């Protein structure tokens, strides 16, 4: 999967979950500050990422993910392994 494909999938998840227009999702968006995600939203989002991309994301790794771009890079790096 290319980075662009990963981004598009993540943008679709965010649009659905946080009720924003998919076209407004950018790499710079901060999940907590820009999307007003609380801890429950964040865990749900991480679980959906696991389901979508088929690999487990540890709590330690998840804590380091703040922006959409960081999530895309993380998933891309995991898939390259």
């Amino acid at each position, binding site marked *: 999967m290319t980075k662009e494909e990963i981004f598009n999938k993540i943008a679709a998840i965010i649009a659905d979950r946080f009720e924003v227009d998919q076209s407004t999702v950018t790499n710079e968006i901060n999940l907590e500050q820009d999307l007003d995600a609380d801890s429950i939203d964040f*865990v749900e989002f991480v679980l959906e990422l696991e389901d979508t991309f088929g690999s487990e994301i540890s709590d330690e790794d998840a804590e380091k993910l703040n922006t959409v771009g960081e999530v895309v890079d993380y998933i891309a790096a995991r898939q390259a392994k």
Partner: protein
Amino acid sequence: MINMVKIAIDAMGGDYAPEAVIEGVEQARDLFEDTVFLLYGKREVINQHLKNRDRIQVINADEVITMEDEPVRAVRRKKNSSIVMAATAVKEGQADAFFSAGNSGAVLAAGLFIVGRIKGIDRPGLVTALPVVRNAKQSNFVMMDIGANADSKPVNLQQYAVLGTYYAERMMKAQSPRVALLNNGTEDDKGNKVHKAAFELLQQTADINFIGNVESRDLLNGVADVVVTDGFTGNAVLKSIEGTARSMLGLVKDAVYNTGVSGKLGGLLLKNGFNQIRSQMDYSQYGGAVLLGLKAPVVKAHGSSKATTIVNTIRQIRQMVATDIVPGVAAYYANQQANQQASVDKSVEND
């Protein structure tokens, strides 16, 4: 063929697990012929206590989430635990409902993260039925949220009002249930910012019968059918009701038995009365607390549950499945969203 109700049960949860859970499940199996039980836990331990396997499937779960485990982390890590496996069975459609008397936080986390929310519900809340006393017209009411979310926004309270209305209508057979907001006074402008905003929002909500604010001292008199509150307040109020009832009964007992022989004789005569009060105040007769707003019934019974409470909770779950509470709420919110979309489309057309 009749449609069988399938309930996924955490056999390892609760102070008296697995014995009390298994005993309760066997009693329920004998009572309810249309119900199948999926029991999750350590197979060899369950098998030791199980007398008859008719309509009971045992599914081995190697791990157990203990009361000491941090809930969200445990649900994420202990994939082979009875709680996670039972909740997953519901998610995958193998069971209609999930029930546990174990670690409350883990049951809530498994419900929220594994079973998942109904689309349109921001935060599910815990609902329980409580007794109404000295009122011939009403025997109970429901209160929500009693502790799933410590912080609530006005929109969460509005959703509890809708969810509670469905629960009261279908489980308590209340007609057009009266919804009230628990507040620090009955006047319309009482409360903090959240409560004032929630009051306005509830007043504007069609489809519910909002009657205004109520105070906690009036709850047990039947002042409403659905009492809406944030989880922090709801939990504190629930525990103060429980504690006060217990202390008062203790005081009355002391007074009776400390008045010598005549008091003791009188006490004997009053014994049935005391027992009646105790059983009327015992809300475990209505089953467990339901995490409402999820895609399937998720029910948490008290950690100290014995077989009778397990049976009552299974009765409650069957009724929830039979009265289609979850599909009812899901259809309500799907409809709301469709209406919102339609009004957005209309305003675009008019632009």
